[in-house]
C-alpha cells in the first residue's frame, strides 16, 4: 500500500485517540510488564571507565516528606534554613562538590548536586562532613528513621541515598537494553534486542522508575573537577 493511504493515516493517529491511550495505559502496558518483568534500576551515574566520565556527576536525590502538608513542607524548609551555614560549610569540606541545592517539589525534599568521583565515597564524605547536621533534616523524611544517626549507619545511609537518587537514562538510548538485561539476570537470555523494541523498553522502565534523569546532563566545562576549577581561578582548593 502506498504511503499516505487511509490505513497509514489511521495507524499514525492512534496515539492521539483517547480510547487507544486508555487501552494502552490500562491493558497493554500492564500486560507487557507482566510478560517482560522490568526491575527498578538503581539511581545515579554508573561507574565510569574513562577518567573524564568520573567528573561532574549528577545526583538527584528525592526524599518524600513524612508530613505532606504546607506545615510539613515548612518544617523541612526551616530545618534546612536553620542549618544552612553548617550544611554549606560541610559541603565545601567534602572538596569534590561543584554545586548542591535543596528544592521542595510537591511533597519531596530534593537535593540536587554535581560532584566528582565515586558515588559511595561522595555520600560517605558527606556523612563525615555534615552527617550530624543532616540527621536533623532526616527526621522530617519518610523511611529515614533507620539511617539516623548516619555516622553509625554509614553503609545503610549510602544504600538509602542510592535508592532515592533517580535513575539516569543512558546517554546512548540503546544502552538501556544492557542495563535491563543486567538487572534481569539470570533470567535474561542475553540475545540482541531489535531497535524497534526500544520504545517499549523505555515505557516499561518509566513504569518501574517514575522519576528519571534524561541522560547524564549538560556540562558547560566538561572534564574538570571542582578542585581544578578552584585551582585555575586561584581561590584555593
Amino acid at each position, binding site marked *: 500500500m502506498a504511503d499516505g493511504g487511509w490505513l497509514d493515516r489511521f495507524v499514525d493517529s492512534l496515539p492521539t485517540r483517547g480510547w487507544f491511550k486508555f487501552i494502552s495505559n490500562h491493558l497493554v502496558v500492564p500486560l507487557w510488564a507482566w510478560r517482560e518483568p522490568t526491575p527498578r534500576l538503581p539511581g545515579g551515574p*554508573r*561507574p*565510569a*571507565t574513562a*577518567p*573524564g566520565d*568520573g*567528573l561532574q556527576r549528577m545526583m538527584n536525590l528525592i526524599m518524600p516528606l513524612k508530613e505532606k502538608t504546607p506545615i510539613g513542607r515548612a518544617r523541612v524548609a526551616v530545618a534546612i534554613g536553620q542549618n544552612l551555614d553548617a550544611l554549606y560549610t560541610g559541603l565545601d*569540606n*567534602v*572538596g*569534590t562538590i561543584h554545586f548542591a541545592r535543596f528544592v521542595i517539589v510537591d511533597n519531596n525534599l530534593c537535593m540536587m548536586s554535581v560532584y*566528582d*568521583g*565515586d558515588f*559511595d*565515597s561522595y555520600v*560517605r*564524605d558527606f*556523612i*563525615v*562532613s555534615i*552527617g*550530624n547536621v543532616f540527621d536533623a533534616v532526616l527526621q522530617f523524611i519518610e523511611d529515614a528513621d533507620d539511617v539516623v544517626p548516619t*555516622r*553509625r*549507619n*554509614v*553503609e*545503610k545511609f*549510602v*544504600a538509602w541515598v542510592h535508592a532515592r537518587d533517580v535513575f539516569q537514562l543512558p546517554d546512548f538510548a540503546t544502552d538501556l537494553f544492557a542495563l535491563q538485561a543486567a538487572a534481569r539476570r539470570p533470567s535474561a537470555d542475553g540475545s540482541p534486542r531489535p531497535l524497534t523494541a526500544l520504545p517499549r523498553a523505555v515505557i516499561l522502565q518509566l513504569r518501574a522508575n517514575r522519576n528519571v534523569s534524561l541522560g547524564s546532563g549538560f556540562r558547560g566545562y566538561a*572534564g574538570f*573537577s*571542582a*578542585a*581544578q576549577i*578552584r*585551582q585555575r581561578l586561584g581561590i584555593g*582548593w
Partner: protein
Amino acid sequence: MSEVRLDNVQGNILRGYRGGLRHVRHMMLAVADPAAARRFLAAASRGGSVDVPAITRAPHWGAADPPACFNIGLTHAGLRALGVAEAMLATFPREFVEGMAERAVKLGDIGDSAPANWPAPFDRPDRIHLVATGYANSPGTLDAMQAAASRAFDVLGVRDGRARTERDVLGSDRDGDNLPARRVFFGYADSIAQPRFAVDGHAGSSSTRPLQPLGTVLLGYPTQLEGVFFRVPLSDELGRDGAFNAFRVMAQDVSAFEAYLDDAGEALLRLEQAGGPPLLPVDAEASFDRPIDRLGALREAVAAQMCGRWRNGTPVAVSPFHPLPAGSRKAFNDFDYRGATTCPAGAHIRRVNPRDGMIVQRNANYARQLVRRGTPYGPDFDAAQPDDRERGLLGNFLCASLGAQYEAVMSDWLNLGLSNPDVTGINDPLIGTNTPEMSVFDLRLADGLYHHLRGFPRFVTTRGGSYTFLPSLAAIDYLAALPG
C-alpha cells in the same frame, strides 16, 4: 570500648609474616560437604590437630617465630555454603556481597584486566568459598597444608587429572616467594610504610608515624573518621575483631617497565644534551649509592618519581635527586608531603597514601589507609636476559571497609587522581589502566618545573582476586558449630 583480645584476632591482620617465612600459598577452596568444611574449621580454630593446620592468632610470638602460619578468609558465597542464615548474610556490606568481579569497573579491572579474562579458578568467582593462606619456609609444608585442605574442600585451580598434592597445581605455580632484600618486581623495596596500631607488640617498625585507630583494619572499633563506625557483620559479638581483605593476583610486565625506562632515560638525556631543562642536577649521579652513568641515573629517577620512592626505598620527598644509602626503614618512613614537596602529585605512593599532604577530600588523609601484605610470585627477573614469563604480586589489602577504604583508593585516587587537581583525570603510572596513546605522567625537573612523560603502557594486569572476610576466632567457632 574494651581492649582488643588478640587471641580472638587472626594473626595476619596485625602482623606480616614475610620477615621469617619465605613461601606463601593462597588456596582457593570450595565447600563440597558443609559438615566436613565445618569440622575443618573447628579443628583449625582449636589447634593441636595432626591433620588440620591451626589458625595463627595475633598474640605476640616472643623470640621464636613459628615454623609456619595459616589463616583463612571467606567469601559471601562461602558463608552461605557453610550454612549462615540469610538474615545474617544480609548484615554484610554490599561490595562484599557482590564480590570483586562485580566491582570490576570501579576497581579499574577493564580490558585485559577484566574478570572475563581471569584464568581459573578466578573465572568462576561464585565457586570460591574460602581462601586459605599458608606461610612456611618450605614448599613441602605448604603441600601438607593443601593436602589437609583437600580432605575437607575442593581445591580449585587444580589441573585435571592430577593429584591435588602434586606441585603442578595453581597453588604452587602461584606460590609467593620472597625476592632478595624484600624487593618486589619492578625492583622496589616494599613493605616500608604500614599503618601502626597501639596494640602490644604490633606497633610496627620504630617509625614515629602517627598511630592509627584499630577501626582502620578491625571491625567494631573507632575509625579514623570521628564518630564513624563501619557496620559490624553477623552480630556485634561475632563480627568484632574481624576484617575484610581484597586479595589480588597482579601480573607485572617487568620487561615493558624496564624497556620504558630505557626509552624515557634516553629521551631525557637527549633533551638535556640539546640544552633542555635537566631532570637531575649536574653530577647528581655521583651522589648515588652505587656507580652509575648519567643515562642510568636518569632512568632510575624516572622509576623513582613514578613510584615516589627510589628502588632502594628512599622517598623522593626526602631525597629528590638520588637514593640515600639503604638505611633503616624508619628513616624511609618518617616523612610527609606537607608544603612544597619534591614528590610529584602523580607518584604511586603519594596517591595511595597522601599522609599529611593537602588533598581535595579534606577528611580523608588517613581515613583510607590499608594494611598491605604482598608477596611476589613467578620467576625472578634477570635484566640481562629479559623474558615475558608471568610474574607479579599476590596482594592482600586489609581494612575495616572495602568500600570506604580499598575501593575509594582504587577508584578515586589511583584511577581518577581526584585527590590533587594536578593529576585529576590521569591514571596511576605504575598500576593504573594506562594505554600508550593516553598515558601521561608529570616528572618534576631539577628546576621545579614539570615535563610530560607520555607513551607508557599498562604495566600491571589483574589476573584474579576475591573479596574475603577474615573472621575472628569466635566467628570461626560459630561457623564451625552451624547446624545442617
